[in-house]
């Protein structure tokens, strides 16, 4: 059973049936049909198609890593190595899961999704090769910076730290507390935390989702934030 405000708790209604794929199956365009025929075939034609797919996804991985430059420290040959790894793993996943392609989009859009997600995952793991912060550092003085409070606003910084820290200590479970502090206080990227804890993005996001909801309710109850209509509505927290 999931509460109504669990992320994912109402996917069918919210997404028009995401669990089944969520989109409308359609006749494949010519390019999609060619990809499916070649990758689903055998012999040298399939090998050539796999090779073309790898070249394509390598270009996408390089473009994506380039787009994210500045948000990761990787450059040069190491960056290209990461692009190759992402393309390799994406091709393997695509050829393994080809039967799961439902024809709800062009084949290439479906395939690009694999390599973009591989890039995210690999950047998350790479964070720990040169971490800018250790797990469980819990430097609360950093918290106001996350929300744009100037270093000279001493009173506001002190009040926010005290209020949030009290709510974190009193309202969150041990696991919620650890995840919240890692992501929000210490600034560890969510995908890096996923890699470190051996978890999944969805699981960590759900922990954060519940933590955010509990903290907001506590801060509203203590007069720091305004109670939202959702918090005032008892239906909001009922299990569907």
């Amino acid at each position, binding site marked *: 059973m999931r509460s109504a405000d669990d992320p994912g708790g109402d996917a069918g209604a919210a997404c028009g049936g995401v669990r089944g794929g969520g989109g409308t199956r359609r006749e494949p365009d010519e390019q999609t049909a060619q990809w499916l025929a070649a990758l689903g075939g055998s012999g040298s034609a399939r090998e050539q198609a796999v090779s073309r797919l790898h070249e394509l996804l390598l270009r996408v991985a390089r473009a994506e890593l380039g787009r994210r430059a500045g948000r990761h420290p990787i450059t040069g040959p190491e960056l290209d190595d990461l692009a190759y790894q992402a393309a390799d793993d994406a091709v393997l996943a695509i050829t393994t899961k080809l039967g799961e392609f439902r024809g709800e989009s062009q084949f290439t859009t479906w395939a690009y999704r694999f390599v*973009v997600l591989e890039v995210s995952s690999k950047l998350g793991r790479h964070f720990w090769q040169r971490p800018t912060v250790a797990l469980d550092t819990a430097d609360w003085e950093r918290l106001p910076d996350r929300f744009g409070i100037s270093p000279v606003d001493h009173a506001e910084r002190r009040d926010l730290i005290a209020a949030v820290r009290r709510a974190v200590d009193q309202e969150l479970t041990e696991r919620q507390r650890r995840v919240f502090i890692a992501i929000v206080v210490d600034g560890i990227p969510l995908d890096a935390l996923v890699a470190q804890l051996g978890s999944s993005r969805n699981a960590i996001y759900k922990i954060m989702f519940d933590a955010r909801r509990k903290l907001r309710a506590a801060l509203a109850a203590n007069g720091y934030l305004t109670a939202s209509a959702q918090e005032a509505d008892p239906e909001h927290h009922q299990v569907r």
Partner: protein
Amino acid sequence: MAGWDELDRFLQTDPRDVGCEQALQILHVYVEAVLDDETGAEAARRYPGVEAHLLSCGPCAEDYEGLLLVARADLA
């Protein structure tokens, strides 16, 4: 008190939020809906739970931005 406002925005949750797993499962479909209607209105109408998720999940929003760009560029 901009800091409190920013904290408030961060802590707010949307009950329509479908979470990462389901949002990523149809991200390619969502992206093509956005390419069909660049305002994003049609994608949001068809997949409100995905839209809600992308508004509050930084990593999934990053993946969405990347996928949208490469799909639009049609590198094939």
